[in-house]
């Protein structure tokens, strides 16, 4: 049996009023990839924050034993000294600085008052090569894509002489291709003897990469599953541990929904990049949606899906538009105004709920009414009783878990925030809803509830356009699927006839990666 590198014993962490972790135990062997899975709020991130010293010794109970010694970290520096390095879900890079500057930020080469830039860039290049990046370390971070930025984060961790690497949702903002490359990189590091802990919601990735999987639920460890058998473990098996019951069907059936006439048509739609107007981000795309239909738009990151959705919604992204938008057969005069789009009964539910969707410092009530405040106001004065009633109605309908609609949105979990965002746009009473990554970063249970809401919308005769980068979701939820790549529409198929393979083949055939 291999040596135990890390053992966390009976960790209990209490926040005022809540027990976030309750007697959690975790054993990580040297040289393995250990996955932590669990629903949002189960305590995964809290546990890793305890390990890395963000919550210092003394604020929790229990012991951290690393390399045979009991450790008492009082900050991140202490844990990094021993080679425990955490890469957070949100990238912590300064876009205006170069890759090299970023990698050695706070860890400068040479002297504090005389930084040795030659060594910095030479060493940086060495680590970049290790993660498979060919970029020079003198390039500004903002010029490279998100996938590569994630690799820079890993190179940065390597530069800190990491022995135990913790990756918190490393693939949440990556497309399938980049995700797979990242996972393979992790497997490569494992061969060289690196120990890793990965936190992820994407169970297929966990099954692919992890040797052992520890399931955390409600702040306690439920089980540790061994995944070193010849066959990778099934996602259903992991989900069972996460939700405490068997999930027989991840996608609810949509029954008795009649798909009606075409409501919206987009013809020869072309959009240019706002900063580089010569670049086409959406290139001659034509789509249509019928009443009561759920249309999936699948594509890799950068395929132009979000850009398509946002440009249809009042040209809120891009410049130099061309093409035609028809609603109910009537051409709609294009205007650069979100308010105009809402007037035409189009809604766009953003993929970035914290950045573009919600006002975190305001209540559920205020967020719910924002896109349709006029309907609650007379002469500019808001009818507050009506507003409250509306917020209550949608909380009820969407089963948002909150003590009150006066609760600040920033205090809600990801899944509940997503429901508030949906409520906001449902209250705007659109006929056409463009949902961009509606289940990003939320847990299995909440996902199922969101799918049910989508089905309800379709049953009410609304057009739903669902943009997603999760293939099973696109296949499981759509009636029809459009496939995009590099700004172009490269395929359209009925969901009943589509498979993961046929969709990926359409993308490969269109040129990229082939």
């Amino acid at each position, binding site marked *: 049996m291999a040596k135990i590198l890390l053992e966390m014993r009976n960790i209990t962490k209490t926040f005022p009023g809540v027990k976030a972790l309750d007697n959690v135990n975790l054993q990580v062997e040297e040289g393995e990839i250990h996955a932590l899975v669990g629903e949002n709020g189960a305590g995964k991130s809290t546990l890793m924050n305890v390990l890395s010293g963000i919550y210092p010794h003394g604020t929790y109970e229990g012991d951290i034993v690393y390399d045979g010694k009991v450790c008492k970290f009082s900050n991140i520096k202490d844990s990094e000294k021993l080679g425990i390095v955490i890469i957070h879900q949100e990238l912590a890079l300064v876009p205006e600085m170069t890759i090299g500057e970023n990698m050695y930020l706070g860890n400068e080469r040479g002297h504090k008052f005389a930084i040795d830039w030659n060594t910095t860039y030479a060493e940086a290049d060495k680590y970049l090569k290790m993660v498979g990046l060919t970029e020079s370390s003198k390039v500004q971070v903002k010029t490279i894509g998100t996938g590569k930025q994630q690799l820079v984060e890993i190179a940065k961790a390597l530069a800190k002489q990491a022995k135990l690497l913790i990756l918190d949702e490393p693939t949440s903002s990556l497309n399938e291709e980049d995700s797979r490359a990242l996972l393979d990189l992790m497997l490569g590091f494992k061969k060289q003897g690196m120990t890793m802990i990965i936190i992820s919601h994407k169970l297929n990735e966990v099954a692919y990469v992890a040797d052992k999987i520890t399931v955390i639920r409600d702040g306690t460890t439920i089980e540790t599953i061994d995944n070193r058998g010849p066959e990778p473990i099934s996602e259903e098996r992991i989900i069972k541990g996460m939700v405490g019951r068997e999930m027989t069907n991840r996608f609810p059936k949509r029954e008795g929904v009649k798909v009606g006439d075409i409501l919206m048509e987009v013809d020869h739609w072309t959009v240019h990049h706002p900063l580089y107007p010569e670049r086409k981000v959406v290139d001659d795309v034509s789509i249509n949606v019928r009443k009561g239909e759920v249309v999936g738009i699948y594509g890799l990151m950068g395929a132009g899906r979000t850009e398509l959705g946002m440009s249809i919604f009042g040209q809120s992204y891009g410049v130099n538009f061309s093409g035609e938008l028809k609603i109910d057969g009537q051409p709609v005069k294009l205007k650069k105004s*979100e308010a105009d789009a809402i007037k035409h009964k189009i809604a766009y539910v953003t993929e970035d709920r914290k950045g573009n969707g*919600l006002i975190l410092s305001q209540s559920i009530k205020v967020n719910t009414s*924002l896109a349709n405040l006029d309907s609650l106001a007379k002469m*500019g004065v808001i009818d507050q009783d009506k507003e409250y009633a509306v917020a209550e109605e949608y909380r009820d309908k969407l089963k948002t878990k909150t003590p*009150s609609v006066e609760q600040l949105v920033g205090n809600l979990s990801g899944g509940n925030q997503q429901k508030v965002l949906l409520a*906001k746009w449902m209250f705007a009473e659109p006929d056409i809803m463009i949902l961009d990554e509606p289940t990003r970063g939320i847990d299995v249970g909440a996902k199922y509830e969101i799918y049910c809401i989508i089905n309800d919308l379709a049953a009410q005769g609304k057009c739903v356009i669902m943009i997603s980068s999760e293939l099973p979701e696109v296949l499981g939820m759509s009636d029809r699927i459009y496939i995009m790549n590099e700004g172009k529409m490269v395929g359209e198929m009925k969901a009943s006839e589509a498979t993961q393979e046929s969709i990926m083949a359409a993308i490969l055939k269109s040129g990229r990666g082939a």
Partner: protein
Amino acid sequence: MTMKASKVSSFFQKYTMVLALVLVTVFFAWRSGGKTLLPANLNNLIAQNGYVFVLATGMLCCILTGGNIDLSVGSVVCFTAAVGCKLMKAGWAMVPTVLVMLLVGLAIGVFQGFWISKVHVPAFIATLSGMYAFRGFSNIVLQGETVAINNEAFLNVFGGGANCYVPDFLHFLAGPESKLNVTCLVAGIAAVVVFAALTVRKILVQKKLGISQSIIGQIITTVIISAVVIWLTLKLSKLKGIPTVLIWIALVLLIYNYVTTRTAMGRHLYAVGGNEKATALSGVNTRNVYWFAYANIGLLAGLAGILTAARAKGIDPTYGEGYEMDAIASCFIGGASAYGGIGKVSGMIIGATLMGVINQGMRIMAVDTNYQRVVKGIVLLVAVMFDVLSKRQKR
């Protein structure tokens, strides 16, 4: 036990500045042997700080949009006052002069708001240039001289001179020998009655809708505010009654409390400051929200100019210097967030009052003016520090 402790700490978090105001008031009353609470001094407190309340109200709207401030208000106050004084010297009557002054303020606000909202000049820079330019214009208009006002009506209505009080037309109720100002008393009682009625209505509506709010808390707040109002009315009625400037302050505060809490535009101010992108994607024209905020503070600067000119019975080219900072400080002490989206008129009132009480207390105790500034600076820092710390603990 923990429940109780967390309740106590959340109480302190919510009412830090109210408690600070009480402590500071008590401190100065004690150190000055009760002088600060004499009717004449309370009257002065209101008269001297009229402009702060008016400007801070406008500033709050700007700050709500994302921590944006308006540095030009001090200069705009001086400029509108200069224009008004010149007009009255030329023989203009009160009403047209006042209208012109308000319009000048509004026009300046619209002008600066244009650059900020449509051309995307940072607010700080647009209003910094306004601060220089309108100080210069004031000097040009006044030709470097002090211009006095001798329009009695103007002074009486806007709080300057010896007769700037609401006439005691209800005096007959108490008989001619009474020394109290009856109108003032009646107005105070009326205000309390209306306030209590509104609170009761609010509680009833909450009950009907099933909103769980602490009823006892609301009643206590109402009682305390009513008590302060009654106490103040008693004090003022012993002197000459309601200073006219108080009417203007009350009007502005009531209107803007309503605007920020009940209207769609008010909601948009908070929304833009909370998350501009999300607000734009919700179909709100965010640029117009900025324009509104800056046009609005221009208008209020015009009103502050009127009050300042009346109070000083004239204007000289240095008036209004530093007024912008008093307004900004009042908002931040009153709990407005420097990042926007958070802040209330009620908080700003506490902030402005706190600054006023400290200013006046030190003046009565004859503290050196330089030290007064030091103390003001420290108060601002400590206030915001408390605010930041108390919010951090919450996480």
